[in-house]
């Protein structure tokens, strides 16, 4: 029974591969938490590293990360949504649409280190922004743009034709329809795109190393909070990389735990919104 034997061997391989992949994931999570969790404390989360006192803290990096996420989204979300609206609602199919869709796809395939190089010479040198959170955010905006555009496009596609034709039939203008009907209906999809983008920003390092730099101080005055945008600032992930290079493994693992917690949260949020989209679709189908 050679046939049976061959079947069993292959089936075994399939199970082995699956359990290997699963074991890997659980192993990674457990390892990071075990190594990192003991080093997390209130002090660690709320102060900055001080050479004088010999203490380690990541408050500055947390603030930098928040700046980075907010700034990037402020730039990328309107552009991404606008681009999706243009592609789905205004543009006529043809060369231009194909060009835009092709470049959007290309953009999503470019590795982050290339974005880093480009951000460094274009935003940093040509536009004179230097190593700053703004430079980093502009660079990351380009990187997450395809995510937002594509998710918004998909969400817009699922809005039933009858909604818009109904509104236009009543004499509503196109922009009015987009604002009051299309965008609200597409909201869960758009939010999913945004959450995915946040996840990407949180985990990014190569694109930021040469654009946003590695500063880790908190601003000291009110004006400083604004000025911070044009100062160098390292996100949590950058700090993780640097700690690793300096062999500060405890700090590194503690940051890794914080990051994993955030990623986990993002994933749960995404699932929540995707489920929301699916229920919305289901109710539509049921209503017809």
């Amino acid at each position, binding site marked *: 029974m050679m*046939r049976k034997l061959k*079947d069993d061997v*292959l*089936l075994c391989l*399939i199970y082995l*591969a*699956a359990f*290997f*992949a699963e074991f*890997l994931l*659980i192993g*990674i999570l457990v*390892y*990071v938490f075990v190594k990192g969790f003991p080093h997390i404390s209130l002090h660690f989360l709320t102060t900055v590293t001080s050479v004088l006192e010999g203490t380690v803290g990541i408050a500055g990096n947390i603030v930098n990360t928040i700046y980075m996420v907010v700034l990037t989204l402020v730039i990328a979300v*309107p552009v991404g*949504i*606008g*681009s999706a*609206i*243009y592609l789905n609602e*205004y*543009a006529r199919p043809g060369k231009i649409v194909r060009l835009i869709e*092709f*470049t*959007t*796809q*290309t*953009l999503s395939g*470019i*590795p982050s280190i*290339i974005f880093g*190089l*480009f951000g460094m*010479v*274009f935003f940093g040198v040509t536009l004179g922004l230097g190593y700053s959170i703004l430079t980093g955010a502009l660079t990351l905006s*380009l990187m997450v*743009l*395809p995510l937002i*555009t594509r998710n918004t496009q998909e969400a817009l596609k699922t809005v039933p034709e009858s909604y818009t034709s109904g509104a236009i039939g009543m004499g509503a203008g196109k922009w009015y329809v987009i604002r009051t009907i299309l965008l609200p209906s597409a909201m869960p999809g758009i939010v999913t795109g945004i959450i995915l983008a946040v*996840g990407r920003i949180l*985990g*990014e*390092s*190569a694109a930021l*190393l*040469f654009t946003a730099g590695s500063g880790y101080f908190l601003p000291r005055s009110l004006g400083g909070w604004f000025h911070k945008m044009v100062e160098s600032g390292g996100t949590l*992930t950058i700090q*993780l*990389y640097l700690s*690793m*290079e300096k062999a500060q493994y405890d700090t*590194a*693992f503690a940051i*890794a735990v914080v*990051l*994993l917690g955030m*990623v*986990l949260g993002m*994933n749960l949020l995404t*699932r929540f919104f995707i489920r929301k989209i699916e229920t919305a679709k289901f109710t539509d189908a049921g209503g017809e």
Partner: protein
Amino acid sequence: MFSLCAFTAVAAVFSITLYMIANGVPAIWQVGWKEILFSSVWQPVARDASFGILYVILTSVVGTFLAVLLGVPIGLFTAVFLAEAAPAWLAAVIRPAVELLAGIPSVIYGVLGMMILNPWMYCLEQMLFADSLTHQFTGGANLLSAVIVLAVMILPTVISISEAALRAVPPELKASSLALGASSVETIFRVTIPAARSGILTAVVLGVGRAVGEAMAISLVSGNSVNLPLPFCSVRFLTTAIVSEMGYAGGLHRQVLFTIGLVLFVFIMVINGILSGILKGERQG
């Protein structure tokens, strides 16, 4: 107004291309393209500086190839498990786990590789090269470590895209195969996987793209000296060359790093081209 937004992507791709060429080409003129691409001596800060990146290119090619060779079968088999063999409840547990694996920042993979993989590699190295007089010990930071980290990193991409492709195969095809007396395993390998091949190919190409472009994770585990890509040698990839030297490089050295970026960019563009070729072929059916 909206069209302006839409053209951001076009403008970005064009200006990135332009900048990569503008910054990467001068060094090629200055050093000579034969010298850069086909010389293996990399001594950028020596008095008589030499900028050969042949080994760096080779490392990226070999490293990516090995990572794909290792990661794709495991990923594909896991996808088969999820799509064909796993009971529904188990698949429902594993699928989000795979998504999580995809969302973990690449630096964390590097950290784990450095803390877990490198010591193992060092043990292995000490055993294998115990009597060797010529081997340079790396402490485990070598090509093999980088390959394993890359293979793990491309797993989620390969798994989720292959699984979607396998699920899209019409059930009637599987039924026909079973009705001809094929076993379920034979059906998977002879009908389902071939029928899903364009999707699986897409997964592989995306995996290649991710492996070629990954920088931070492998910069922590690969040792970072310019060497021929042999399993137990400390090596430097295109990406890690940029990461580790851009911080202090100046003058011609810096320009050569941009040339490395340009080479990487060309690789990625070729991969993108292949990908859109596959997608187009799929659409035409």
